[in-house]
């Protein structure tokens, strides 16, 4: 991972490939690298779909090594949805494969002159970029089948569906999983539209013949990895709850506390929650011959994912995760697990962010386009998006665009991006992160709950209400750092409770790079990333007014606890005071 692959799509005579050493970006990976490149090289005021924007893909620092859980890949650009900097990440196989091929990043620059669509093929022999108009408007599953037929089944792919080609703001970038299915998506912020604007349909990666990335100190690395894996396996969340039920295990408890956004954030509890809970979903998968415990990439030891079969026992989609089940389920008043799974498949196939699409459909339901609870109607709306009808083009541009098109006031977005599956009126602290994250409303922005890092900036009494600002700050910093390692964020639970597991992660990073990594340095890395991202947004015209939740969260009490969001604006402005 000592080089960057740059492809200039605007070059005379067709796309031009060049390789560069890492230079000033040395030592960075994942989100750290995508945000550094975007913040340094992209003019903040450019149009996100224009030639000045850059589309950056970067595996994490530890991707491609033997480190467990290190298969996350970051996708960065200026977002067409938020207008600010974006990093969206995904699991699947591409991070490991791209890292083994020696690339710290792929950067797509410029914009092709004609309307040809390209595929990029990277293997041990080099890089090819080939126009292939037979791929135009293919949904992701068909596209990957075609790539498999052409390049064999040892490949990993990064692709867009029709939504990306139509440059919709809800378009995702798909990554293939271990079964070579396009099920893992860098979903948020319309990154698929930017890949589409570069004219690239798919990147085919094949690391056959390439070695595993070697750490500087292999013995120390192996030992740290062993401790790390042991820590993950012995913890109740990473060793039991997530493998047994997946992330959808959250439905029951979030619903019970009244923080489960229902009917477009009108209520905090959904009557049908137990019908779509992780417990119910896992049981259904077992009964139908699916798999409730499955990794999204080789080397995942938590295995929070699964495989969902239809009533006849045939593959329908990967196990829909909590955010998806909520977005297409409770938020739309739908309690039919099969309908939700179908929507998950359609989103993956057309290349759409499941959170944005679920939130958009709920907004459309509030606008009266279809009734809340109408599962068939919701499926039809996603199909409109896939076909690119006029209505589909409105919906495919996300909740805010749809809300405006239908004259609605209650649109649950921050910086144009739909809120995820936790109502900030119930859990105010997550509202602080939703409001202030440079990414727009993002539940993963402040995810990295680790006792050690929480103490940075002083001890916060966990039961005192006034610690929310400091906590959100530290959580966002730690998350930005983890997002750079290539590690799945779900490791956070084991490192919260087990200092030796946190230390093992630090040891792994130290043994890999040959440079000692302390908790303080780790936090410094996170701070630098957030500073770059905030700086980009500021130059793009963002002010403190963009760090706010929509007004209705402050004025509409949320049943059943009837609470409004009460964190003061001046406190929100303190999150990034460092």
């Amino acid at each position, binding site marked *: 991972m000592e080089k960057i692959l740059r492809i200039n799509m605007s070059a005379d005579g067709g796309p031009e490939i060049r390789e560069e050493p890492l230079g000033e970006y040395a030592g960075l990976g994942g989100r750290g690298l995508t945000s550094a490149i975007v913040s340094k090289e992209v003019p903040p005021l450019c149009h996100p779909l224009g030639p000045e924007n850059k589309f950056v893909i970067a595996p994490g620092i530890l991707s491609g090594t033997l480190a467990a859980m290190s298969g996350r890949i970051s996708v960065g650009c200026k977002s067409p949805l938020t207008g600010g900097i974006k990093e969206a990440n995904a699991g699947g196989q591409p991070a490991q494969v791209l890292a083994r091929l020696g690339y710290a990043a792929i950067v797509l620059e410029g914009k092709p002159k004609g309307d040809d669509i390209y595929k990029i093929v990277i293997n041990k022999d080099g890089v090819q970029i080939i126009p292939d108009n037979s791929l135009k408007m293919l949904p992701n599953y068909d596209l990957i089948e075609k790539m498999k037929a052409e390049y064999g089944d040892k490949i990993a792919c990064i692709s867009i569906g029709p939504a990306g080609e139509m440059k919709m703001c809800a378009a995702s970038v798909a990554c293939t999983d271990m079964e070579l299915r396009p099920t893992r998506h860098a979903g948020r912020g319309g990154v698929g539209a930017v890949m589409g604007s570069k004219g690239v349909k798919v990147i085919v990666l094949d690391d056959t013949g390439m070695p595993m990335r070697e750490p500087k100190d292999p013995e120390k690395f192996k030992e740290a990895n062993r401790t790390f894996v042991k820590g993950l396996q012995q913890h109740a969340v990473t060793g039991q709850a997530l493998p047994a039920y997946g992330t959808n295990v959250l439905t029951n408890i979030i619903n019970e506390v009244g923080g489960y956004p229902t009917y477009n954030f009108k209520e905090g509890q959904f009557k049908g929650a137990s019908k779509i809970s992780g417990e119910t979903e896992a049981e259904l998968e077992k009964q139908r011959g699916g798999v409730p415990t499955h990794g999204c990439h080789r080397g995942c030891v938590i295995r929070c994912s699964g495989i969902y079969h239809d009533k006849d026992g045939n593959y329908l989609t990967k196990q829909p995760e909590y955010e998806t089940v909520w977005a297409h389920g409770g938020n739309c008043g739908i309690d039919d697990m099969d309908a939700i799974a179908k929507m998950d498949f359609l989103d993956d196939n057309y290349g759409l962010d499941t959170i944005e699409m679920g939130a958009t459909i709920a907004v459309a339901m509030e606008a009266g386009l279809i009734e809340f609870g109408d599962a068939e109607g919701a499926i039809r709306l996603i199909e409109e998006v896939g076909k690119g009808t006029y209505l589909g083009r409105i919906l495919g541009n996300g909740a805010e665009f749809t809300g405006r098109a239908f004259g609605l006031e209650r649109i649950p977005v921050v910086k144009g991006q739909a809120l995820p599956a936790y109502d900030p009126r119930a859990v105010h602290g997550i509202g602080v992160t939703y409001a202030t994250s440079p990414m727009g409303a993002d539940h993963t922005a402040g995810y990295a709950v680790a006792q050690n890092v929480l103490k940075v900036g002083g001890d916060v009494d966990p039961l005192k209400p006034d610690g*929310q600002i400091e906590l959100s700050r530290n959580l966002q910093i730690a998350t930005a750092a983890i997002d750079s390692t290539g590690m799945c964020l779900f490791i956070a639970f084991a490192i*919260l409770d087990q200092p030796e597991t946190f230390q093992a992660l630090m040891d792994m990073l130290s043994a890999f790079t040959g440079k000692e990594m302390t908790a303080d340095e780790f936090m410094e890395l996170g701070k630098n990333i957030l500073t770059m991202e905030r700086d980009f947004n500021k130059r793009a015209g963002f002010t403190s007014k963009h760090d706010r939740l929509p007004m209705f969260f402050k004025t509409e009490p949320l049943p059943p606890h009837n609470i409004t969001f009460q964190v003061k604006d001046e406190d929100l402005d303190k999150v990034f005071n460092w």
Partner: protein
Amino acid sequence: MNKILIKNATRELLTNLLPLLQQGILMKVTAGSSVRDFLISNLCLDEEYIDRRIQSILLNGRPVDDPSGAKIKDGVTIALSSSMPGLVGATLRRCSPVASLRSTLTYKESSNIKSNCQATVRLKLFNLIMSEIGPFMLKQGVMVEAKRIQEILNKLNSLFDKDRNEVFLNNETIEPVELLKVLSQDDGLCIIQIETITEL
């Protein structure tokens, strides 16, 4: 109140009945007792299990940090969960280091609770707690709405039939199809108890 007993139940049948517990069962307890006492006396859980395994206790949807201080009133709902993923999952844990993020939601005890009279509590068991404690509770018998039992048994087809199971309604044998008819006309509560073929 009708009482149902299903004998010779397979583990599979038992697993299929566990969703009754995620939606909640009703229990008669003493008002004014603490949540911790309830877990020890009524659910027969040991201190270690309570402290290690039950990481989130919700009383009327509010996270409880001190189960010894939180008191039970008539009509409350208690939900139990093991530790959960996600930042919000982490905030809901007892005395979580990130508990301040949910400070407006946190359970606060009010003083005016009538003690020593009987209270009805709805108990919900989620995730690992459901799969670990649930089977024993079903073996002892649980009180739930008859309609919910009917809804679940209805979907079981071959798992619940006369060739496999011996079914009793109020100590009299009854065919599974007949039981479903009775339950469909029952708008009240009933008790269901399961005896499995093998020991749990």
